[in-house]
Each structure stands twice: as structure tokens, then as C-alpha cells.
């Protein structure tokens, strides 16, 4: 369970450009929830993910994971229990290393990176099995450098690598936004499958309203650092794209767009 309490986040504090994004922001995410977050640009979706992961500092407030306050913990320490996939496919893999080396790196997350052999031959069949479920033919290219793969292939690998080790939270930051519609669909299906299999608590930021409706069991819409819509369970299932769009337009008109 993840709980954000009284979160305050300012950009450029102490200058004339000071901008308040979150003030006294609260959000509670239950275990096993698959939460989709939608909202216009600048509404604080990605900042929210960055705050959870510790990539950006916090002015005020606490973040609790299973009752433990992690708001002072460093980013890399929090990542022990978090898997994250970025919008940019090249952020989830090492381009100058082979598929096998990338998978081995991810496989060792949470363990010591010592002087034992980096790639373990005995694990290769397991990696191939994982890659096979992508049906992208990557299982036969273990010694190819990841830099030679397409964006979609890299993103699929990034997703596999982020979820390979035991984690509690999966953070998806518009992870299908840079992909063509067909690949995006494939990645989304794969995401859903992995989340179900591993029973991961998932937070997905997306601009694709259809994905937000179709996948997951909770949906929130954000606007200027506030949650303006929060639907769970049955309520969420009844939500439609048209409804969401109307709500979206209403917000934009308020802003004067």
C-alpha cells in the first residue's frame, strides 16, 4: 500500500518564477490496484511519479509504503521495490550492451554486483522464455546490441527488465506514447499480463484515454495538481471515453483554452 500525505511541491522555490504544483496533496493506493492517471500537460502526472520514486525533492509531506515513511530515502534505495518504465524507450535499456547482458543486469537487481561472471549461461533459457512471450523474435538475438533494436522492441525489453526481479510497484510513465499504435497495443497487453501474473500494484500515466478505460481497476484524472476525478471498481467499469473527454473539455474551458 502506498500513501502520499500532505505533499507540497514547488518549482523554482524562492524566485519570482515560483510555481506551486502540489499543495497538501493526498493520495492512497491500495495493494494490488492498477491505477491509471490521465490529465492535461502540466497537471502533475509525471511529477507525481517522480515524487514517488524520489527523482525530484519534496518541499513538504510524507510518503508511506506499507506504513513505513520513505520520503527521506534516496532514489536508488527506493528503486529496490519499484520497477519503472519510461516514455523514452532508450532509458530502460543499455544500448551498447547485448540483450543477454541487459537481461543479466536486470536479473541481478537487489543482489550484489560483485566479481562473479556477469552473464550466467544457466539462466539463458529462462531469458529466452521471457523474450519469447513478446513474439518479437528477440530470443534468437541474445548477442545483438540493444542499440540496434527498434523503439518498440526496446520498450518491450525495458518492461521485461523492470518486472524481472521481485518488486512491489510498477510505475509506467506514458510507456506507450513513443510507439506506433500496433506496438503500443502489444506493449499494453503485455503490461496487463505481467501485472496480473505478478500481482503488482501499478501506477500508469497515459494520454490514451482508451487504455485508461480498458486497463486497470482505478482511474484518476488530474488537473493543476489536484485529483478532479477518482473512479474505482464498478464505477470505473461504467466510465466511457466520451465521459472522460467531456470532463477534459470542461477543465480546459476553465483554463480558458
Amino acid at each position, binding site marked *: 500500500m502506498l500513501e502520499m500525505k500532505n505533499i507540497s511541491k514547488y518549482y523554482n522555490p524562492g524566485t519570482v518564477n515560483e510555481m506551486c504544483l502540489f499543495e497538501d496533496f493526498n493520495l492512497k493506493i491500495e495493494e494490488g490496484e492498477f491505477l491509471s492517471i490521465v490529465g492535461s500537460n502540466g497537471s502533475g502526472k*509525471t511529477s507525481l511519479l*517522480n515524487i514517488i520514486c524520489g*527523482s525530484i525533492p519534496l518541499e513538504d509531506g510524507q510518503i508511506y509504503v506499507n506504513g513505513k515513511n520513505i520520503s527521506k530515502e*534516496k*532514489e*536508488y*534505495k527506493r*528503486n*529496490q521495490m519499484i*520497477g*519503472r518504465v*519510461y*516514455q*523514452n524507450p*532508450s*532509458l*530502460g*535499456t*543499455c*544500448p*551498447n*550492451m547485448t540483450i543477454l*547482458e541487459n537481461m*543479466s*543486469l*536486470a536479473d*541481478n*537487481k*537487489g543482489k*550484489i*554486483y*560483485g*566479481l*562473479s*561472471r*556477469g*552473464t550466467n549461461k544457466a539462466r539463458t533459457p529462462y531469458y529466452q522464455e521471457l523474450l519469447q512471450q513478446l513474439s518479437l523474435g528477440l530470443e534468437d538475438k541474445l548477442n545483438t546490441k540493444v542499440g540496434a533494436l527498434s523503439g518498440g522492441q526496446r520498450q518491450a525489453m525495458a518492461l521485461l527488465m*523492470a518486472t524481472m526481479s521481485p518488486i512491489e510497484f510498477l510505475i509506467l*510513465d506514458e510507456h506507450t506514447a513513443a510507439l506506433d499504435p500496433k506496438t503500443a497495443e502489444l506493449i499494453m497487453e503485455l503490461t496487463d499480463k505481467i501485472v496480473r501474473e505478478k500481482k503488482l500494484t501499478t501506477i500508469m500515466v497515459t494520454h490514451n484515454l482508451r487504455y485508461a478505460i480498458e486497463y486497470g481497476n482505478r482511474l484518476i484524472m488530474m488537473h493543476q495538481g489536484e485529483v478532479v476525478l477518482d473512479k474505482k471498481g464498478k464505477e470505473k467499469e461504467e466510465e466511457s471515453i466520451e465521459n472522460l473527454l467531456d470532463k477534459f473539455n470542461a477543465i480546459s474551458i476553465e483554463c480558458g483554452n
Partner: protein
Amino acid sequence: MSFLISILEQGLIYGILGLGVYITYKILDFPDLTVDGSFPLGAAVTALLITKGVNPFVTLPIAFLVGMCAGAVTGLIHVKAKVRDLLSGIIMMTALWSVNLYIAGTSNVPLFSQNSIFKGNALVEALPKGIKPYATLLIIFVIAAVSKVLLDLYLKTKSGLLLRGVGDNDVLVTSLAKDQGNVKILGLAISNGLVALAGCIFAQEERLFEISMGTGSMVIGLASVIIGTSLLKKLTFIKATLAVFAGSIIYKACVAVALAKFDPKAKNFITAILFLVVLVLSMDRKAKVKKNA
């Protein structure tokens, strides 16, 4: 013949330095100027130890360890004090000049009368007569080969993979719940350890410690790495670490040929021109993945 042997000797010594520069420049993408200070640091430590009568072979690991410390300090300045990479190296390079003077005592320590790894030890005496003229080259070759193989092996370990990961995509390393700063410090330490080892061998080969011997060593290392990796990149079966040695020998040969035709005063000018030509021809400054998350 002695001209050729001298090129090979110097090429192999600077190849070890090149291995160190390869780690920082190619793997970590960190322009590390500490090299100009850690190369003479290795030599200064060697001069001190040898004049105190320490076994010359013991100076090799000690120089490596002292170099590692210098590299680690550069890393700490960069990671913990958040100083820019280039500036951290310049700060260390400047400080090491005085450190080297303190260690060596003076700016010039002749080692002609002292024993070294090339002279006056049981290993060299045991060599057959026919090989003796090549003893120096042979010993340098063995040390260079061992350094190369050990570095290759290290880069295949889990720790080595992580080091390569930091240079490739530091966001991923953070995602793997590892502090990328610590990995960088480790990389800088290993790199400068190799550079100091090269300095240690160089001092024994030249039988001299000289305070300004490090000036320009960063450029030589860089030139070796760039010549080696860009000239031989088509030959994919050649490992980058081997290419660095090839680059270093080619570079030394070019400088030696140029020096035979020109005045010794022109040495640094030739070095600079050669380096410029190599840079323009290779143009391999890679576009890095920027942290945009």
C-alpha cells in the same frame, strides 16, 4: 632495430595508460584530467620506494593502489561535492603536482644506479642470453598483457557490467537500485590505478622520475584510445582493449617518425596536430541519452 624496440616499449607502456583512459573516456564518458597527475604519481611512488631499497616488483601493485586512491578522490569530488567532471579532474591534477613533489622529495630523481624490474633482479638474470637484449620489451609486454586480460575479465563480471551500464545509461543503473555515483568512483579508481601503473613502469624504463613527465599524458592516452578504436572498429573480432594498445603503438610510431624529421622542440606541436587529425578523422563523439525523465 633499437628504434623499433623503443617504439614498442613506449607504445605498450602508454597502452596501459590508454586502458585507464579507455575506462573513463569510452566507458564512463568522463573526461578525466587526473591522468596528467596520476601518471607521475605512479612514477613518484616508484622512485621513492626504489631509492628506499624496496623490491622493484612490489612497486607495481603499490603504484596501482596509490593511483586508485587518486582516482577515487576525483570521483568523490565529482559525485559527493557535485563538481563538474572536467573541473574535478583539473583540481586533482593541480593538487597531485605538489603531492608528487612531496613524495619524490625533488622535481628530479635519477634511478640510473638503482635496481628495477628490468635490471639487477633474478628474473632478468635467469633469461637466456639470446633474449636478454629484449628483456625490457618482454617484461613490459607481460605486464601489459596481464593488465589487458584482467581488465577484460573484470568488464565481464557483474560489477563490470554495471560499470559499463553507468556510462551507457545511468538512469537504468539507478532503476537497478544501485547508486550510480559509487559505480563512477569505482571506475575512476580502476582507471587511475592503471595510469599510475603505467607511470611506475615508465619511471623504471627511463630510470628517472621527472615532475613534468605527466604533462600531456591525457592527450596521449586519448589519442591511443581514439586511434585504436576508430581505426580498428571494422575488425569486430578485435577487442577494444587490444585496439587501445594498437592505437598507442601507432601513435608512438607516428611521433617518433615525425621527431626524426623535425626539431625536438616541435614535439608537443606534432602531438597536438596528430591528435587534431585523429579527432577530425574519427568524429566519434557519441550522442548520449540525456536524462530527460
